[in-house]
């Protein structure tokens, strides 16, 4: 749900990083946080367990700059990936303007990726949303690891609608900003269509 504030000439959008446990959602946010100028970001908030597994969400407000006279702010959220935190995922998805599915490229995580995508679709349906109508991109993460599924195969499994997709290694930062830029483009174009 975008928030256009004419008083402050600001556009605020909410983006959610979705994906199975340990796929690298928080790592994406940590990389963005480490690379952007201090004056353009707020605090990175992580509601995590003592073992640094996301418990509720991570949150990073990001001010990207001015577009057509409006300050453009993105609020980045991650969901907890572990299966049993589904109630929390539903809450965080509320009011989102765009979704990034971070898929773990490792062979043994193929099923977890598919489950997460199905879970995302089910949770969006509950809110009368669908991936067809929402700005949505895929990130194939951990491309630097040896035991990975080829991108073409991930495309067949996870991306039948051929939405924009990006290969990444979030730990090193590869592909992180490309993914963010990809979804930001879709969100802003959607906003343009709506107005």
């Amino acid at each position, binding site marked *: 749900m975008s928030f256009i504030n004419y*008083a402050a000439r600001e556009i605020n959008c909410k983006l959610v990083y979705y994906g199975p446990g340990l796929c690298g959602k928080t790592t994406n946010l940590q990389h963005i946080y480490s690379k952007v100028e201090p004056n353009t970001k707020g605090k990175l908030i992580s509601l995590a367990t003592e073992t640094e597994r996301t418990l*509720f*969400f991570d949150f990073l407000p990001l001010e990207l700059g001015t577009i057509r006279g409006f300050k453009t702010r993105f*609020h980045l959220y991650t969901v907890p990936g572990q299966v049993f935190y589904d109630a929390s995922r539903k809450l965080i998805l509320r009011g989102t303007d765009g979704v990034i599915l971070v898929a773990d490229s490792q062979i043994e995580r193929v099923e977890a990726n598919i489950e997460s995508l199905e879970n995302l679709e089910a949770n969006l349906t509950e809110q009368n949303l669908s991936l067809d109508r929402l700005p949505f991109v895929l990130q194939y993460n951990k491309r630097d690891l040896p035991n990975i599924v080829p991108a073409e195969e991930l495309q067949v499994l996870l991306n039948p609608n051929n939405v924009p997709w990006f290969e990444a290694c979030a730990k090193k930062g590869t592909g992180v900003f490309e993914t963010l830029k990809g979804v930001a483009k879709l969100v802003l174009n959607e906003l*343009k269509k709506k107005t």
Partner: protein
Amino acid sequence: MLGADLTLYEEDERRLAAVLRRLCEDAKSRAVFLIDKSGQLIAAAGETANVDTTSLASLTAGNIAASGGLAQLLGEKEFSVLFHEGEKDNLHISVVAQRAILVVLFDHRSSLGLVRLRLKRAAEDIGQAFAEMALRTQQEAGRGRAEFRAQFAQLTDEDIENLFKG
């Protein structure tokens, strides 16, 4: 009720800010914040300079969302009021006009009873303001949007690329 997207014009901001300022004074509170349920700060009043309002808005929305989830679990519609008591400061969080969250930050100079008493009128005023905002948005769909549309219609991929430069 407003539509899914929230659009705030200058006069709305002034009107809501005036309601919050009055609540802040009447309830003898330190600060008052009006937040959208999706975690966006709509307006604020009082001692807000030293508060990270963006984080406050996001965490409050998360808090209300989690409480809403708990309520549903127990067969309640929602838990519309939350109270956090600290050593010096306290937070009173309540859902107003269905879609917004009103946060009152107060210390020993006020009390929970006073905050709750003063909140009622403010909640009504905010509800009224939102209802009128929704009505006007419907009636004058083209007005402010025309300005926005004119600017956004020109939006190019290059504009978006520029956001990511530097």
